[in-house]
C-alpha cells in the first residue's frame, strides 16, 4: 500500500489555480523532491497534504485513509510531520520543551505524558547533536541550530512522512552536505518517507532524492527518477527558458 496518494487535487484561491489537477504517489520510506520555480504551487501542495488547506477537488489518502478534509492537528498524529522554510520555533520555550511538544501531541496513541515526552525529547535532541543547547530558549539558537531543532521536533512525532519545506535554503554548502547526509541516514533508520521541497538548491535534491516531481504553474510537469527528471527538456525550459533558435 502506498503511504500517500493525491488524486486529481485542485486548490484555488479565487480565480488563481494554485494546484491544478495534481496526482501523485509516495511510497513508504521513499525520498522525493518537489521542484519548481517560485509560485509553482509547492507550498500550497504541502498545505493540502498536511491539512492547512482543503482542496476544492480531488482526494488525499494517507495509508489508505481518506484524509481530504481532516484538520491538521488530526493528521499530525497519523504520521505527517513538517518543517518550515523559515524555522518556526516556539521561541520562548526551551529546545527540550519544543521537541517534547512534538512527542506529546504528534504521536498516534495521544497518550504520551509529559515525563515520557521529555525523555523522548532528550534522546531526539542528542540524535541531532543539540545536546548542549537543550535548555536554551529556542529563539536564541542560530539559524542552522533552529533547523536542526525543527527536524528533532518533527522526528519526535515519529512520522511516517516528513514534509521538508526548503530545508536547505540559506545554508552554507558545507552545512548542506552534512545536513543531507544526516537526513538521509535518519530517514533510512526510521523508515521515514521524505518529501523535500526545493526551489533553488538542486545540489540537495540530487544528493538525496530518488524521485523528483516538478511543478509548473500548479500542474505536475514531470514525475520521474531524479537524474531523468532534471535532464528533461521541459524542466530545463521551465528553469532557464527556451533555448535560442538556431
Amino acid at each position: 500500500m502506498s503511504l500517500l496518494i493525491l488524486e486529481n487535487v485542485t486548490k484555488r484561491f479565487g480565480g488563481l489555480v494554485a494546484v491544478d489537477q495534481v496526482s501523485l504517489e509516495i511510497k513508504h520510506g521513499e525520498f522525493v523532491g518537489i521542484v519548481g520555480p517560485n509560485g509553482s504551487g509547492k507550498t500550497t501542495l504541502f498545505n493540502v497534504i498536511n491539512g492547512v488547506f482543503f482542496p476544492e477537488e480531488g482526494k488525499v489518502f494517507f495509508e489508505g485513509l481518506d484524509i481530504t478534509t481532516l484538520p491538521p492537528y488530526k493528521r499530525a498524529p497519523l504520521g505527517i510531520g513538517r518543517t518550515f522554510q523559515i524555522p518556526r520555533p516556539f521561541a520562548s520555550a526551551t529546545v527540550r520543551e519544543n521537541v517534547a511538544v512534538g512527542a506529546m501531541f504528534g504521536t498516534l496513541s495521544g497518550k504520551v505524558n509529559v515525563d515520557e515526552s521529555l525523555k523522548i525529547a532528550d534522546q531526539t535532541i542528542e540524535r541531532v547533536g543539540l545536546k548542549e543547547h537543550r535548555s536554551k530558549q529556542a529563539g536564541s539558537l542560530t539559524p542552522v541550530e533552529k533547523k536542526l531543532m525543527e527536524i528533532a521536533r518533527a522526528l519526535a512525532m515519529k512520522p511516517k512522512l516528513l514534509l521538508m519545506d526548503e530545508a536547505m535554503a540559506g545554508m552554507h554548502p558545507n552545512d548542506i552536505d552534512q545536513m543531507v547526509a544526516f537526513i538521509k541516514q535518519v530517514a533510512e533508520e526510521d523508515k521515514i518517507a521524505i518529501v523535500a521541497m526545493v526551489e533553488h538548491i538542486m545540489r540537495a535534491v540530487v544528493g538525496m532524492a530518488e524521485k523528483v516531481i516538478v511543478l509548473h504553474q500548479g500542474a505536475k510537469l514531470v514525475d520521474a527518477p531524479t537524474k531523468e527528471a532534471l535532464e528533461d527538456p521541459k524542466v530545463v525550459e521551465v528553469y532557464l527558458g527556451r533555448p535560442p533558435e538556431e
Partner: protein
Amino acid sequence: MKKGIEKYYPLIPVFAAYLGLFLIGKNVSGMWQLVAMLLFYCALGQAFNIFLGMTGYVDFGYVAFMGVGTYGMALAITKLAHFEGLGIAIIIIGFVMALFMATLLSLAVGAVALRLRGAYFAIATIGVNEGLRFLIEGARIWNGSEGLIFTAQLNQILGRETASTLMTFWADIMVLIIAVSAAFITLYYIRSKIGYALTALREDEDAAKVMGINVTKYKIIAFITSACFAGLLGAASWALKTPYVFPPEVFEIHYTIEAIIIVLLGGSGTLLGPVVGGLIYGISKYYLSIFIPGFQLLIFAPIIIIIIVLFPEGVVGMLKNRFKDSALGQFII
C-alpha cells in the same frame, strides 16, 4: 520533571507573599484596606494570566466576566432572600451562580471570538463588554441601569453583624482563596500538556496545529478557566464587599486595562508574575494617589513604561531567565 514535593516549590514565593500580606493586614492597624486592594489586584492578575499570559490573546472585554459574576451573586441574594433559613448557604449559591454565568458567557464569546486573532480578537471582545452593558441597561434586564441593591437582604438573611464582617473581612478572605486556587491551577496547567500546548500556540499557532495540537480546544480551556476565576472574583470582591451592582461600574473597561498592566509588569505566562505585578501596581497606585493626588497617573505612566522597557518579559520573566540554572530557579516559574 520534578518529583514529589519539589513540584510545588514555585508556589512557595506566591504563598509567602499572600501570607505576608495577610499578616500585615491583620496586625498593623489601618492596613487592611490596602491589603484588600492588593489581594484583589493579585487575584485579578492571576485569573487573567491564565488566559492572557498563557495564550497571548488580549481579551479587552475581560471585565465582562467579573460583571456577570457580580450579577450572579446579586441575583442569588435578591431572588432567594425571601426563603427563610438559607443563611450562609445563599453565598454558596451565589458563587455557583457566578461560576455558571461566567462559564456560559465565556462559552458563547469563546465559540465566536476565539476564531479571530490579534487585534480582531481584542476589538470583538471590547464589543462584547460594551454590548452586554448596553443590553442590560437598554432592555432593562435585572433592573436595568437602576442596578440591584441588596444590603437590606444581606442584613435580613445573615444578621446585621455577620453581614458587616462579611463585607469588611470575609469577602477579602474569599478573594485570597480565589487567588490561591488560581495559583494552583496555573501551576498545574504550566506543568501539564495544557501548558505545553498553550505555549506552542502562543508562540506560533499555525506551527502548533501542524504539530498535532488542537489549538481551539486548549484556547477554550484557558478562556473558560480564566473567565470562571473572574466570575468568582466579581462575586466576592464586588458583590459581597459592596452589596450593589450597577452596569456602568461592573462593565468598566478600566479594570481590564489594569489586569493587562499587572500581567505584563509581572511577567505574562509565569506563576509568580501576576503577584509581583499586582503588588507593584497596587502599591504604586495607592501611595502615588496619597502623596501627589491628582497627578498620580502622570507619574505612574512613566514608571510602567520604564519597567516594561527594562524588563520586556516582565519582572518575573527577567528573574526566571537570570536564575534559570541556579538553585533559586526552581522557585521561580
